[in-house]
């Protein structure tokens, strides 16, 4: 197995608060990696750095590609500093104008959100069609004239949308507004929407939050299926320990912005530092 994502001493500071302190971890291709830790440990901040919503102040986030690894931090554009090498400044200005989160998504990283962010007034199908916009014919003239190439691309996108609706079991609700779905269905729709961007890595931020045990079981089946059937790598933040222990191959534990343990579920469970972080320790 090769490494898909490699974080190299990533740091981020908000004022005086060190949200991430030299976090290094790697995600194997085709694995399910979980990030756990107490509230406020910096899990979601780490996610936002990986998916390009925050810009890491220090360190590298390398995504392996066919050619040389892509540094996601650079895609967001950097602070212009006069005495840097001219070439790197030109690059920074370019990405400052035209770069941003969407380039990270286009590099193959999709995500879901802790508080669901669907396009709530649009229908379920439309949510999935928006996600596929990169594979559609976006030529405005072709759309006005309804040219065959445009129709074909639309039909293909629609097919893909219904394919995912079948998988998450929402085909009957295809033309309902997304806001009308139940909470569990909204969570699944958000995962399907992320998958429609054809990612290599999908980042799920607390996918089981607010789900009942039955729905959580369905979710764990879905997540395993994403990995086994659709060959995506999964990075997941979750508080539900039984879910984490049952699905993940690899676990990273964060506390106060630092990685305190890494390893298989068994190793992490036995790690005294983890127990101390979760339950408090006797020594203090």
């Amino acid at each position, binding site marked *: 197995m090769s490494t898909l994502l490699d974080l190299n001493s990533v740091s981020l500071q908000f004022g005086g608060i060190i949200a991430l302190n030299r976090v290094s971890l790697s995600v194997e291709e085709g694995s399910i990696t979980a990030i756990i830790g107490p509230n406020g440990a910096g899990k979601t901040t780490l996610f936002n750095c990986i*998916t*390009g*919503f925050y810009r890491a102040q220090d360190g590298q986030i390398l995504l392996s590609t066919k050619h040389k690894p892509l540094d996601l931090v650079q895609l967001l554009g950097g602070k212009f500093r006069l005495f840097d090498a001219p070439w790197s400044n030109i690059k920074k200005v370019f990405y400052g104008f*035209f770069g*941003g*989160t*969407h*380039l990270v*998504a*286009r590099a193959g990283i*999709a*995500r879901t*959100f802790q508080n669901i*962010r*669907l*396009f*709530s*007034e*649009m*229908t379920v*199908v*439309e949510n999935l*069609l*928006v*996600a596929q*916009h*990169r594979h*559609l*014919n*976006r030529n*405005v003239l072709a*759309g*006005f004239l*309804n040219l065959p190439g445009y129709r074909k691309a639309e*039909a293909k996108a*629609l*097919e893909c*949308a*219904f394919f995912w609706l079948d998988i998450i079991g929402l*085909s009957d609700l*295809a*033309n309902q*507004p997304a806001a009308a779905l139940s909470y569990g269905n909204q969570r699944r729709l958000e995962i399907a*929407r*992320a998958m429609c*961007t054809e990612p290599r890595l999908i980042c799920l931020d607390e996918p089981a939050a607010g789900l009942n045990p039955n729905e959580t079981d369905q979710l764990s089946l879905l997540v395993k299926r994403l990995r086994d059937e659709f060959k995506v790598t999964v990075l997941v933040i979750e508080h539900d320990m039984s879910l984490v222990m049952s699905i993940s191959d690899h676990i990273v534990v964060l506390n106060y912005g630092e990685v305190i343990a890494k390893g298989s579920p068994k190793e992490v469970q036995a790690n005294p530092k983890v127990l101390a972080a979760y339950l408090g320790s006797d020594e203090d």
Partner: protein
Amino acid sequence: MNMSRPRLSKTLVLSAFAAVVALILTGPLSGLVLEGYDFKTRFSAPLQIAAFVLIVRFIAGLLPESWLAPRQKNEAAPRATRFKTWQLVLGGLLVYIALASLVLIASKYWLSVGILALIYILLGLGLNIVVGFAGLLDLGFVGFYAVGAYGYALGHQYLGLGFWAAIPLAAMLAGLFGMILGFPVLRMHGDYLAIVTLGFGEIIRLVLNNWIAFTGGPNGIDAPAPTFFGWEFKANATQGGVPFHEVWGLDYSSGMLDGFIFLVLLTVVALVIYAVTRLRGMPIGRAWEALREDEIACRSLGLNHVFTKLSAFAMGASIGGLAGVFFAASQGFVSPVSFSFFESALVLAIVVLGGLGSVTGVILAALFLTLMPEALREFSDYRILIFGFAMVLIMIWRPRGMIQQRRPFFTRAKG
């Protein structure tokens, strides 16, 4: 009508209360008549008004309550379209021909009213893209209207551009201005965006007003009358031109120019309606709507939100610019007075009353708000009153506008 006693008496009390309020509000206004430095009282007028309010309130109280309750359902449920494509095409063609044939029977006056209505439809459709689809509240839309109108007038004066060249060029120019406005406001939302766009509209008007050497300032500038293949719509041709009526052996009438502008404008409106309807179902239209719903989710899906926002501004502005060209051509003259904030407010009212995002609603609202003042010319003193009244009624009964945007319906591809 079977009505419970308590409700009846409650209605009576409420009606009496409304009458008293009306008396207090309108009494000093209508009951006191100035006579030189003195005044005399006139009780009949306020009493009539109070009686009218009492009766209307009482009748309203008798109506079933469900009629008066606001519609709870927000979104019309999507369903498969009832019409086949050829039926829609045929229907659209028939409506187009029916409207076009108005040129033959309508008077010059009604043609100019029709032109005005069509111009407001265009403005409404343009702003609908920005506000209705992309959810960017724009209070300075009149700026792009002005850019289109002045683009035509100044383009003729300095570059010798004709009407037909001005249509695409002014639309592009207005689109460019839309993008220029878009850049600084990329990170703004809601109220802040509204204030900045309001300022932008005013800047354009003030520049037009004060750059006297270039634009003629408050005196305005002449816009040339359009020609058709070089034929002019004038009684006597100027400088070797050929008048239209001589070529076709018709008698000259002063309504010909308006008829011609009406026809061209009708065609442009038909094309814009088609384009806007198509846009909704196209990737870019979906991207606009997605941006309105949740910008952060858009970014996480790889949508370039900068490009999406700018394209909405540019597309809306260029339709506004088109409307400006036709305004200048039909008036024959443009001055900054025509592009005050009130116009922006009127267009925004058209979009909101019609229903955000609904093309049909915008067309109906534009027709209503432009034709109603003409039809009720005898009551012109009450125009703003009726206008406000209609707004209040629609906001109560249909908070989302007259026609609610219907979502497109998708079915599984066969095979």
